[in-house]
């Protein structure tokens, strides 16, 4: 290796290192600070403890916000999964007319700036006379996450040979039996993966939620409210918890996505 090549390689490593520091440094800093007391904007490095986490568990507002977030996430993902899988199967089986238009309509809220989606939904709910609350947040999250579930399920369906569906019908199965015994087992990994990723999206969704949430706050909204008052170790601890949960979900999602790609689909 020449001197020039060594220098280039060192520079590349340095750039990559800086990029990683920029991406993960702040998050690590927050997690680190969550274990120490902060007094007048100064960190007391001798005060390592889990007090902030204990305080978090004892904070009823935060626990309630976390519960709300989980309710919203599970409800939105379940509903979006049912709608997206049903719609994808309906669209795929006989290549329906207008499929591209329907897909465009599904993807639009995902692509649009969240502020537009949030304000639109807020106006729609107000005109319909529906009070803001967890239900409106759930609907808002369904609108956003349905696109990702639909796309992932559709990708899997498209890789499933049409002859398998025909073979099932040919062997005497009804369309429902074909869906149950042939389609669903082969869609399972796509459904799990997309549900996990959708749940991650729902878990930290803030902007659309901000327009639709009523008195019952979700975790990101509670966090935002707390930040406005000032930075405390509880905030750091909360960020650390959210970071940990999101990372776990994303990791499980990524691993099942890897499995999804590996499964052989051809007979």
């Amino acid at each position, binding site marked *: 290796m020449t001197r020039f090549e060594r220098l280039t390689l060192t520079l590349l490593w340095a750039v990559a290192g800086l990029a990683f520091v920029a991406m993960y440094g702040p998050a690590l800093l927050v997690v680190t600070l969550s274990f120490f007391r902060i007094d007048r904007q100064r960190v007391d490095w001798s005060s390592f403890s889990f007090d902030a986490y204990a305080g978090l568990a004892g904070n009823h507002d935060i626990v309630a916000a976390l519960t709300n977030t989980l309710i919203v996430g599970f409800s939105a993902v379940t509903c979006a999964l049912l709608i997206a899988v049903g719609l994808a199967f309906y669209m795929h089986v006989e290549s329906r007319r207008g499929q591209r238009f329907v897909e465009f309509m599904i993807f639009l809220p995902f692509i649009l700036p969240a502020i537009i989606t949030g304000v639109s939904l807020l106006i729609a709910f107000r005109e319909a006379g529906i009070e803001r609350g967890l239900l409106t947040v759930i609907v808002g999250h369904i609108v956003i996450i349905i696109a990702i579930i639909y796309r992932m399920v559709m990708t899997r369906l498209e890789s499933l*040979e049409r*002859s*398998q569906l*025909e*073979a*099932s*019908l*040919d*062997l*005497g*199965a*009804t369309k429902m*039996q074909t869906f149950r*015994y*042939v389609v669903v*087992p*082969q869609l399972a990994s796509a459904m799990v993966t997309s549900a996990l990723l959708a749940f991650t999206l729902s878990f930290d969704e803030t902007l659309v939620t901000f327009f639709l949430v009523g008195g019952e706050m979700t975790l990101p909204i509670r966090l935002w409210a707390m930040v406005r008052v000032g930075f405390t170790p509880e905030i750091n601890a909360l960020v650390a918890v959210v970071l940990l949960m999101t990372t776990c979900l994303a990791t499980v999602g990524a691993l099942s996505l890897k499995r999804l790609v590996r*499964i*052989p*689909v*051809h*007979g």
Partner: protein
Amino acid sequence: MSTVPDPQQNQARARVIEMVGVGKRYGNVEVLKPVDLSIEDGEFLTILGPSGSGKTTIIRMIGGFTRPTSGRILLDGRDIVDQPIFDRPFNTVFQDYALFPHMSVAKNIAYGLMVRGRPKAEISRKVAEALAVVDLSDKAARYPADLSGGQRQRVALARAIICEPRVVLLDEPLAALDAELRRSMRDFLKDLQRRIRTTFIFITHDQDEAISISDRIVVMDHGRVEQVGTPEEIYYHPKSVFVAKFFGESNLLAGGVTALAGTDAVIESALGTLTKPGHAGLNAGTAVTLAARPESFRLVAGDGPRAGECDVSGTVEAITFLGATSQLVVGIAGAPGETIKVRAATKEISGKLAVGDSLTVAWTPADISVLAG
């Protein structure tokens, strides 16, 4: 009261499927011109044709995957065009086998019985029998991805026959296999069909496969049935230039009808004058093509042509060694540029004939087919 059996009625009873004027259009494109075709109970029928000939369309319409735009498909005399796929007593072996990758071999085979809600004991017994029939008893717990192409093929066959269908539809099932496996699977298929005594409708574009496996062959081209007949009928008596060309090697010679004598046609060609009986449809002056297989010609030794034979003189232009037989290209004397291919036993010509030698070739008029155009 006893009745005298009606032979025609008996013949009708032997028909499983009857296609009456069945055609298919996609917009302005007619992919299948109206077809009339009867499929007999227990026969091995092959639909043969090049890509785009409409052979797959026929099988898909019988199976219920494609709806005809005209005509009726009768099963035991009853129209089944509106009958859904899952309600038809046919099962299909797909070109890509279409095995379910998430199910074991046993579960794949059991699928048809399982969705029909048959008792578990019956399913287990029949799956074991089907596995034995296709010689895969030791592979019951394996998954399709673990099997070879030939084994997958046999799983697909077992899955198709386990529900005891009236007809098994085979959509180019050997296309994905290598040459050696194709040959062994071809024999296996024929043997299986004889053992289970079920009607097989087999799609292929391979003439050798069609000849060796079929009771009857339907030759198709450009969405039209060109000819239906036994392999021998189609091979030796093609009814169109397409069939003569597509089905094995043929000599095709231009000719013309010079006179008619009753139903006999007198035809002039490079082979000389030929009288063919039973060609009432031809008129004097009609251009025809004469078709004959290379093995329909005989090299004449010193004894000359036999009774009933015609002969023509020529010159050997090329000899191709093919193993037990050799093929000669013979330039016909008095017809510049006209040649015929003649197949003869290699030992008959080896060391006796060479390029440039003169010879006489004989044939029987019955072995020459007269084709329109």
